[in-house]
């Protein structure tokens, strides 16, 4: 499987031996689809926004390359480093997200971006994975040192994030972060009463958002009453799927995609549906499902609560993001601006997803842990004994 001699003890060789190859392969496939679909979706969008097609493609190739390198680099880090990185990262991300409220770039009615020379950065994208690990740390290891329940601190940080994201507004991101937090609490064994309270709170919050925020209301109403009002986007997306059918129109043969707003970002799945058909779309769904379920099942074998919570939090965020994107493209849920990991165009998104997957890979790596575990490695079925 590895192809590298076991006697080779270099950093790369050890990484290659211990990494989850299936997961790595799946992510590689997704990045491959990302390239192909970006080729399909970008010309129409480039033409519409008046940018050069080549620049569009070049940028995305660069983003995806950086993303691939990021995954490899992050997945080499140790659990401790990732923990430290994330705690610091959470602070920075919260500050940066707060900064968008003051000096944010306004795109389509929301201040979520910080303008940088090459790309615009969406700090909340990085907040999501960092906060997941931070929460895991607070829930499992905080207690050992400080005797204050970490859950309250986690909830406190969450409250800050809630306030900032609500002000942006970025209800989609807030929903994902909330769902991730709830999943982590759920996996951590929180009383079902509190879980349901949290769910109830989320529903109440959505009702509140529906009442208070006009754009949320209009989207939900459009979802519930498709025959009323403007539903051009979703209608066009569904027509793209319908045009594709089982096998798709073939590469470059899509026509409805040219009329699809945000074909390169939020509606890239519809482009896949039109040009490559239901078969490839099913494959994409399967790959996402495989990555999420494989990681969760793998965690069952894991004993370190921090790793379980951190990795499950990360992968839940990843999986939910993919679900929300595909679900809204297919009119399963109300339209929500959320990118499809690795496949949608976008630098922030690609980097934050790379960060997430890199961390998951690092956390689920077969590890040589600290020396104190050595004496217990004499169990006959333990894989760790072979590793040494």
């Amino acid at each position, binding site marked *: 499987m590895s192809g590298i001699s076991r006697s080779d003890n270099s950093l790369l060789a050890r990484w290659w031996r211990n990494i989850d190859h299936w997961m790595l392969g799946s992510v590689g496939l997704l990045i491959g689809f990302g390239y192909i679909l970006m080729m399909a979706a970008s010309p129409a969008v480039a033409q519409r926004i008046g940018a050069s097609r080549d620049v569009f493609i070049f940028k995305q190739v660069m983003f995806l390359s950086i993303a691939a390198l990021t995954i490899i680099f992050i997945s080499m880090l140790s659990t401790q480093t990732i923990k430290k990185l994330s705690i610091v990262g959470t602070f920075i991300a919260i500050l940066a997200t707060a900064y968008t409220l003051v000096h944010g770039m306004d795109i389509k009615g929301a201040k979520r971006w910080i303008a940088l020379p090459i790309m615009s950065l969406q700090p909340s994208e990085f907040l999501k994975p960092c906060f997941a690990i931070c929460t895991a740390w607070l829930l499992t290891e905080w207690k050992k040192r400080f005797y204050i329940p970490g859950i309250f601190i986690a909830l406190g940080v969450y409250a800050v994030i809630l306030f900032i994201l609500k002000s942006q507004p970025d209800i989609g991101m807030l929903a994902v972060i909330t769902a991730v937090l709830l999943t982590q609490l759920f996996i951590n064994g929180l009383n079902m009463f509190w879980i349901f309270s949290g769910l109830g709170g989320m529903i109440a919050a959505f009702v509140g958002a529906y009442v208070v925020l006009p754009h949320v209301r209009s989207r939900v109403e459009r979802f519930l009453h498709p025959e009323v009002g403007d539903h051009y986007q979703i*209608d066009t997306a569904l027509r793209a*799927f*319908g045009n594709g059918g089982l096998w798709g129109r073939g590469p470059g043969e899509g026509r409805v995609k040219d*009329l699809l707003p945000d074909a390169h970002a939020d509606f890239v799945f519809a482009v896949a549906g039109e040009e490559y058909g239901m078969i490839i779309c099913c494959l994409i769904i399967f790959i996402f499902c495989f990555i999420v379920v494989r990681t*969760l*099942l793998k965690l069952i*074998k*894991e004993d370190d609560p921090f790793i379980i919570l951190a990795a499950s939090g990360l992968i839940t965020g990843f999986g939910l993001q993919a679900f929300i994107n595909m679900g809204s493209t297919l009119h*399963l849920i109300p339209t929500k601006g959320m990118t499809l990991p690795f496949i949608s165009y976008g630098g922030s998104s690609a980097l934050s997803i790379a960060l997430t997957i890199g961390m998951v890979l690092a956390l689920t790596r077969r590890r040589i842990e600290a020396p104190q575990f050595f004496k217990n490695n004499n169990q006959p079925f333990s894989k760790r004994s072979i590793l040494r």
Partner: protein
Amino acid sequence: MRYRDDRNQGSPRAQERENRAEPQPHVNIKKKKKNYNRMDKTRARLLITACGFCCLYGAVSFKLTMATILMPLAPQKQQIAPQVPAIPKSDPKGVMSGDFALPQIKRASIIDRNGQILAISLPVAQVYANPLEIIDPADVSKKLKEILPKLDVNQTYERLSSKKQFVYLARDISPQQEVAINNLGIPGLYFEAGERRRYPLGRLASHILGSVDIDDHGIAGVEKYFDQRLMDTRHPLRLSIDTHVQTVVQEEVEAAKNKFQAEAACGIVMDVHTGEILAMISLPDYDSNQFSKAPPNSRFNRATTGMYEPGSTFKLQNVAMALELGVAHIWDRFATAPIRVGRFTIKDLRTDHFPPYLSLPEVMAYSSNPASAHIGLDVGAERQREWMQRMGFLARVPIELPESGRPIVPSIKNWGISTVMTIAFGHGIAESPLAIVRGTAATVNGGILLKPTLLSLQDISNNDLSQQPVDNNAPTPQPKAQGERVLSEKTSETLRKILRLDVTKGTGKNGEVPGYFVGGKTGTSEKVSKSGGYLKHVNVSAFTAVFPMNDPKYAVYVMLDSPKPTKETHGWTTAGWNAAPAVSKIIGRIGPILNLFPNTKDAATIDAQLAIPLRPPVPRGIRPLGPGNDPGDPRLNRPEKNKEKSKKKPSAKASSTRSQ
């Protein structure tokens, strides 16, 4: 479960934890157990979460299946329009099955009563390119030149080399050329399907057909009138026009127009029983293919929009009215002496030739104005106006053309004695030629006022009979004319004889065609100048004929606007000299086309039947109108007439109107 328990207890990490916990004395067994339970719970919940994700992705997959294959939402036509070109493209399936389906043309054809195509939409394509996708502009322009000989290679090369994303290369190319270009397989070339309206016969019937604009919407003629119908159904619109008859009328009227150097001319052939118009021309005309280049004078349809004083032709209506109302009889006689009205004098061209009193047939045959005015006076203003109303002379002629004008008629207020007198011989009123033909048809067809139509009544689809079952064995249903009885059969018969008399012995002698028993009435009116007065020696001469008089079938009308005198006409510009010969030629040529052949064998018998004495005997016991019995003659007329007679020198030059 056992397996997992094993793992829990035996897993190294659990052992580690146990070991790590050992040195801490306050950790008791209970807490350890709780810890295990907690890990169990965590693992169970991880499994639940995994199942939850499976459900979410399962739902997405289900919705995907719905959206793609189970209940796919078809893309809108315009969304995929470039993908399915409406051309006979090189479709492998189609080629294999030998199917070469023509693209759908939206607009229906227009055909004449025999099926001859008058207007048809042909599939064409526009070629355009995205220069950014063109690899070798020089090569592409060279290849295109081979298929499109008219292409400017240098210009095409320049266009293809530009930095634009859209350039037109050629317009209105044929499907064959489109296929040929498509087969070149050059990326970056595209087609835009379209259709172009073509009128294969060019000028023929152009005023009837009208034309369409660039978007294929009718802008004149039946193209405009039936615009919706032509777009709704692809079934051809069958007109009543007969291309052969139309051609003959066009040729003859044009010849007459050229011969007499007339400014304009007009010709109509109508079926007097059905109202179907077989031919209708207006000169100058235009080519329907180039409607936009036609000057307004050419576009003007004189047959329906041109309003002319009908002149003596209208005396027929005057007599018909008097006979039908019982005011005058065939034996009554009317004074021909000029009548003075104000500063005008109503008189005849050749007064000295006429006896002081003319019988009714003579009035028509010699076309006397004062006598006609007396007939009008006998009827009276009110009844005359009612009659005009009933005959449709006060309203637009109902015809399937947007270009149908309103006649110019005096208002009720101005309908005084002078109006009654001038209308009696066709002046002081302006009617379209079609209205005159319509009125004439009513006088000869047994007294039915028809609704003229441009649609073939024999076409089932035109009659909305398409729903009814078609019985092939049944004889062709006799076309039913829409009409209203305005005259009695008897009056109509008398009028037929009078019309025949006008040709055999009266002013319309030049209209005769041997064997066709032509009947008709000439009409010449002086043209009104721009300033409003009548122009001397500038006439509008028209001849309205019907043939054959023993069984009237068709009405033929020819009008010449401002004809010049020639040697053959001995200086005359009246209808008997120019319009009547043209009608005669037309009848001689269209008779055989319409399956009517000259009957010279029974000519004597038929003529005898049609004959009417110039001075019919007065039945016993009836006092005819005539000298000393002129009830309609207003008192104010008598002194004038006497004055005229006593002077014996009428101020002829002051006459405003004259008629032959």
